[in-house]
C-alpha cells in the first residue's frame, strides 16, 4: 500500500483552466435515538467497552432484529426536509462483507429501495445559490470500533492484531447521497463545505442527531472526478473517506482536484479507489481499489418485514418539520438587521446556528456575530477545528458579552476570558475570578494611577489643561499600562479631565 506524500499537484488555477470538477457527497448521520436500529441496546457510543451489546447487535445465532420506529420517523423527517419523495414501500437489504467491525458479516442497510429519494437542498455560497440534488437517503446501522495494536501510530499498518468494541455496532445511521454536483467550477471546494455545513444545520434543526463531526455523529465521504473542460463527460472518481470537519471537506476537494489534474495532464489515468484523508498533513493516500470489493451481494433482509409508511404518517411528519433553511436565513437576517455581507459571512463560517443560540442566550446580534466571526473564527483557524467544535458554548459567549455590557471587563479583557474558557479554565465568571480580570472602576485605585500618569507626562497634562482634550488618549494609555489593561477606560478619561480641568 502506498502512503507516498510526494504526489504531484497542479496549481489550483491551472486545474480550472483545463478541467471541470464533478463532486458527490455521501454523508452519514448517526441518529440520537435512545436505542439501536434493530435492538434495544443503548445507542450511545463510548463508556465501558462491549457493555452496550446484545445477541442481535453481536450477530449471535438465532437473534432476530426488530426495526426502531423512531429511527424510521427520523429518516422520513430527514427525507422530507431534503425535499425527497418518501417510499410507499421499501425493504432492508443485507450488504455482505467480511470485516471484523461488523460481527454479522453483513451490514443491514437499504439497497435499491431507499426510504427517501429524489430530493434537493439549496446551498448558499458567497451570495450564490447552488441546488444540490439528493439521490437518496437510506437507513442502515453503524459498525463497531477497532483499535489496532502493535503499530506505532494506532493505524492498521504494522499492527499485530485489532481489538473491537461493538457498542457502536447497530446505532442507527442515515446515509444521504447527492447526485453528481456539476458546474461548481472554482467554487467546488466551497460548495462541498457549504453543503455539509448547511446539511448539518438542517439536521440540528430537525433534532434527530447531535451532528457533531468531531464526535463522528456526522461523517462525510467526498467523491471527486475531473473531466476535460467543456466535454460534458464524467471522469473516473475517487472517494475520500471519513472527512471529519467542514474545513477538511473543502481541503480534501481542493487536494483531490489538484492531484487528479496533475495525473491526467501527465497522461496518466485515475484509479477508481477510496482515499484516506490525513487531517494533519492535508493530503489523501491510497486506500482500497474498488473492484471485487464492490460485490456486496445485496439481497432483501429476510428477518425484517418491509417498511410501508402510510401517506397520513408522512403528512403528519411533514407538519413537524422546522422552517426551511432559505426562509430561516431570510427571517434571521431581518430579525438581526444583518447586511447581506454580514449574513453571507455568518453562513459561510458555519456560524448561523451558533450566532442564533448566542442571541437566544441574551447577546445582541452584532455582538454575537463579532465574537464568533472575529476572536473565535481566528482561534478555530489557528487550531484547525470548526467553530462548532471549539470548547465554548453559545451561552458562554453570551455571558462574556454580558460581562462587557456590565462593564466587568472591557473588550480587551474579554479576549482573555475567551482564552481562559477555551483553555478549559471554567465558565466565563470563573475565568474572570481566577485570572483576576475584572476591570477596575473604583476611583481610589484609578485616581492613584491617573496621578502617576499625569506626573510622568507633564507636557501632555499641560496640553489638556490648555483645552486639547484629544491628548487625553496618551494619559489613558499610560493608566491602562499601569493597570495592566484592567482599567475602566471611560472612567479614567473622566478622572483625567476632572483633575486637569
Amino acid at each position, binding site marked *: 500500500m502506498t502512503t507516498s506524500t510526494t504526489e504531484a499537484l497542479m496549481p489550483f488555477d491551472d486545474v480550472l483552466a483545463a478541467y471541470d470538477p464533478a463532486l458527490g457527497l455521501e454523508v452519514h448521520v448517526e441518529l440520537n435515538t435512545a436505542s439501536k436500529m434493530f435492538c434495544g441496546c443503548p445507542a450511545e457510543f463510548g463508556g465501558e467497552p*462491549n457493555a452496550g451489546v446484545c*445477541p442481535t447487535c453481536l450477530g449471535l445465532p438465532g437473534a432476530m432484529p426488530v*426495526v426502531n420506529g423512531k429511527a424510521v420517523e427520523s429518516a422520513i423527517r430527514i427525507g422530507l426536509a431534503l425535499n425527497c419523495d418518501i417510499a410507499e414501500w421499501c425493504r432492508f437489504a443485507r450488504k455482505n462483507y467480511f470485516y471484523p467491525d461488523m460481527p454479522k458479516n453483513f451490514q443491514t442497510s437499504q439497497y435499491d429501495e431507499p426510504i427517501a429519494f429524489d430530493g434537493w437542498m439549496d446551498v448558499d455560497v458567497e451570495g450564490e445559490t447552488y441546488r444540490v440534488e439528493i439521490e437518496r437517503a437510506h437507513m442502515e446501522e453503524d459498525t463497531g470500533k477497532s483499535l489496532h495494536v502493535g503499530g506505532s501510530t494506532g*493505524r*492498521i499498518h504494522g499492527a499485530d*492484531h485489532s481489538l473491537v468494541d461493538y457498542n457502536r455496532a447497530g446505532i442507527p445511521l442515515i446515509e444521504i447521497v447527492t447526485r453528481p454536483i456539476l458546474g461548481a467550477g472554482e467554487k467546488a471546494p466551497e460548495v462541498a463545505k457549504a453543503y455539509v455545513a448547511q446539511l448539518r444545520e438542517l439536521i440540528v434543526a430537525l433534532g434527530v442527531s447531535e451532528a457533531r463531526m468531531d464526535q463522528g455523529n456526522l461523517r462525510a465521504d467526498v467523491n471527486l472526478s475531473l473531466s476535460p473542460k467543456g466535454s460534458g463527460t464524467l471522469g473516473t472518481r475517487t472517494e475520500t473517506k471519513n472527512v471529519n470537519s467542514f474545513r477538511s471537506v473543502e481541503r480534501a476537494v481542493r487536494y483531490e482536484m489538484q492531484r487528479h489534474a496533475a495525473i491526467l495532464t501527465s497522461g496518466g489515468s485515475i484509479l477508481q479507489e477510496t482515499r484516506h484523508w490525513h487531517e494533519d498533513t492535508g493530503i489523501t493516500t491510497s486506500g482500497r481499489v474498488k473492484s471485487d470489493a464492490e460485490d456486496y451481494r445485496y439481497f432483501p433482509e429476510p428477518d425484517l418485514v418491509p417498511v410501508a409508511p402510510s401517506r397520513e404518517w408522512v403528512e403528519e411528519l411533514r407538519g413537524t418539520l422546522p422552517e426551511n433553511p432559505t426562509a430561516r436565513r431570510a427571517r434571521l437576517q431581518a430579525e438581526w438587521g444583518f447586511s447581506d455581507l454580514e449574513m453571507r459571512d455568518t453562513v459561510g463560517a458555519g456560524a448561523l446556528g451558533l450566532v442564533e443560540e448566542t442571541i437566544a442566550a441574551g447577546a445582541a446580534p452584532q455582538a454575537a456575530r463579532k465574537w464568533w466571526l472575529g476572536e473565535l473564527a481566528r482561534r478555530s483557524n489557528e487550531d484547525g477545528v470548526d467553530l462548532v467544535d471549539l470548547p465554548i458554548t453559545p451561552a458562554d459567549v453570551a455571558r462574556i458579552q454580558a460581562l462587557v455590557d456590565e462593564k466587568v471587563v472591557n473588550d480587551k479583557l474579554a479576549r482573555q476570558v475567551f482564552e481562559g474558557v477555551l483553555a478549559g479554565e471554567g465558565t466565563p465568571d470563573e475565568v474572570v475570578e481566577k485570572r483576576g480580570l475584572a476591570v477596575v472602576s473604583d476611583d481610589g485605585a484609578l485616581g492613584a494611577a491617573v496621578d502617576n500618569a499625569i506626573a510622568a507626562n507633564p507636557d501632555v497634562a499641560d496640553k489638556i489643561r490648555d483645552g486639547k482634550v484629544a491628548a487625553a488618549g496618551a494619559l489613558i494609555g499610560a493608566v491602562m499600562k499601569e493597570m495592566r489593561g484592567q482599567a475602566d477606560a471611560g472612567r479614567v478619561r473622566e478622572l483625567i479631565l476632572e483633575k486637569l480641568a
Partner: protein
Amino acid sequence: MPEITRDEVAHLATLARIDLSDAELDHLAPQLSVILDSVASITGVAGDDVPPTSHALPLTNVFREDVVVPGLTAEEALAGAPEVEEQRFSVPRILGEEA
C-alpha cells in the same frame, strides 16, 4: 434456464471466504446448477398476477418502541470470544484496508 459456471462458483466462493479445492469446484458447480434449475421451476408456476416477494408473511411496519432494554454484560458478551484483550474482541490483523 439459469446456468452457473464453474468460474462463477469459484468467484462466489472467494466472496464468501469459502476455500474450495479444484475437485470440490468440479463436484459442486454442477450441483448448484441443478438447485438453481429447481428453484427456477417455481417461476413457471407463478403467473403474471403473482408479484415477486421476499417475505412469506403479508406484514409491513413491524416496529419497536425506542426504548433501551438490558442486553448482555461485557463479561457475557465476551464469553464466547476466542481471545479477549482490554475488554474487547481480539481479532487477527486486518489486511488490505485501513480503518
